[in-house]
């Protein structure tokens, strides 16, 4: 038995009076695709943000490769190899697509000057290869001028390009069309083949069932089911999600 590369142990998270997560525990193995499912407001995004270092837990422990860690900021979690597609996309409307994709991780000369031409080229490539998005003619378009799905595609392209060990996807397909969704799900499987783990948050159980190895189902801030694909069917999954 391998050691899980990421493990949450009794994680609690409070926002003022509200307890968004209560004693949440689950783990992610290498190359595994986890479906994180649950009702609206169940706490899925909170869990994703916590693993990404955006929120600090109010209690509980986090382990990476079996070693206890504390993600006190995004940089820590990035160092541990975690890359995230946020539900709110985390894009800057007033910047171009290229500058959004490379935001914080620019390609630079030694003096820190941007290699703009190179970045523009890569941006277009990765947009095409990650989600086959259409309608984006230029990597210099401002993100604020894009359609809902195009924005999401940019966020996906960024995460796929910089992925390392674990990819967190928080409802990545919510604004994507059929074709682009297919492309993204294939991308997740391709990464799995490269031993990259994924945690997929989605409300579309078909999508989840299509790519996930295991399902973690949350309700009101706690885990209520943790079940491998082999042990369940889509109709049973639907029941779990709807009835809790």
């Amino acid at each position, binding site marked *: *038995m*391998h050691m899980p590369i990421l493990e949450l142990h009794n994680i609690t998270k*409070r*926002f*003022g*009076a*509200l*307890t*968004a997560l*209560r004693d949440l525990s689950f783990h992610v*193995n290498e190359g595994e695709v986890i479906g994180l499912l649950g009702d609206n407001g169940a706490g899925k995004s909170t869990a994703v943000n916590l693993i990404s270092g955006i929120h600090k837990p109010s209690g509980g422990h986090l382990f990476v490769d079996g070693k206890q860690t504390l993600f006190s900021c995004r940089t820590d979690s990035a160092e541990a190899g975690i890359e995230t597609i946020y539900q709110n996309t985390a894009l800057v409307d007033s910047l171009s697509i290229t500058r959004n994709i490379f935001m914080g991780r620019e390609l630079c000369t030694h003096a820190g000057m941007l290699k703009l031409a190179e970045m523009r080229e890569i941006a277009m490539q990765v947009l095409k290869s990650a989600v086959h998005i259409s309608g984006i003619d230029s990597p210099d378009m401002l993100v604020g001028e894009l359609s809902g799905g195009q924005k999401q595609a940019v966020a996906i392209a960024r995460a796929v390009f910089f992925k390392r060990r674990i990819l967190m996807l928080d409802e990545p397909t919510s604004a994507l069309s059929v074709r682009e969704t297919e492309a993204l799900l294939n991308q997740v499987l391709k990464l799995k083949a490269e031993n990259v783990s994924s945690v997929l948050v989605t409300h579309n159980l078909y999508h989840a069932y299509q790519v996930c190895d*295991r399902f973690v189902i949350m*309700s*009101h*801030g*706690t*885990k*209520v*089911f*943790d*079940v*491998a694909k*082999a*042990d*369940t069917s889509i109709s*049973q999954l639907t029941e*779990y999600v709807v009835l*809790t």
Partner: protein
Amino acid sequence: MTAAPMLVQATAPHGRLRRQSPLMRLIGAPAGAILVAFILIQVLCIAYALIAPDEFRYLSSQNLTILMKAVPVLGCMALGVGVLMIAGEFDLSVGSVYALTAIVMAVQVGSGMSPFLAAPLAVLIGVAIGLLHGFITLRAALPSFIVTLGGLLFWRGAVLLYNGAVQVRFDPGPAFQGLFGGTFLGINAAFWWFLALSLAFYLLLHRHRFGNHVFATGGNRAAATAIGIDVNRVKMTAFAIAGGMAAFAGILATVRVGSVQPGQGTGLELQAIAACVIGGLSLTGGRGSVLGIFLGGMLIHTITNVLLLMRAPGFYLDMFIAVLIVGAAAFNSMIERKGRG
């Protein structure tokens, strides 16, 4: 490592809301933190004044009277500026408008007009100027910062154009004087006005339809437009209110000193914005409360007052005021973060 489906917890725990102490709930409410900060500061002052009534004459009747006379000018101005800030716009011109309308009123009364006509005229001019700023801002799609910075210079110049660089006496007769400068139930008339206007603004902003539109416009202009709010009308109204309140503050100040200086009101715009920001208004609009503005204005004056009473070296008074304003704001923000936990 695969596990059989596992029912982790049979019944999902509903009601994820913790109970909070009343204090915590107060702090969490809008302007709650500033209220707590304000009360704490008052308690400290009063305690010290009771212990050393001769050293620190905070509670002497003269001092209370002056405080009540001092607060309303900045307070009324801050109310107007605050509404506009919540609607997402700035007004840097209020200090100049305040001087201009006061001079117009004084000159008119000097040349025989009844003050009961001249004062509404002043407010009307303030409203008209506010509308003009709003019109330019919205029509030309400019930042109100630049338009009202222009207003700051322009109306200051207009004061000179209207009456030259001369100080104007204002002698409105006892009826008018009593209405704005007298005493009623032991409380200064100007302070009554400030209280009444604060209440009116509270109702307008927090209990009236218009206030909802102001918050929506400032909070997310696109959303407000999308839902059918006429954001331009809301902003125009807010501009008019800011201008009118600046003029009203001018009336209170003029009644108090009995004359107007063409240079007066310089820097008042920043003070008014500071009062609002201390009171919890956001510079980008959409957030704030009338109670916050009220307390912000009170706080600035209390701080100056306390410093003078404690005989802080007057030459460097501004340094102390600066430290205390920033300190009060930091204290407020600290309480607030505690409240959010």
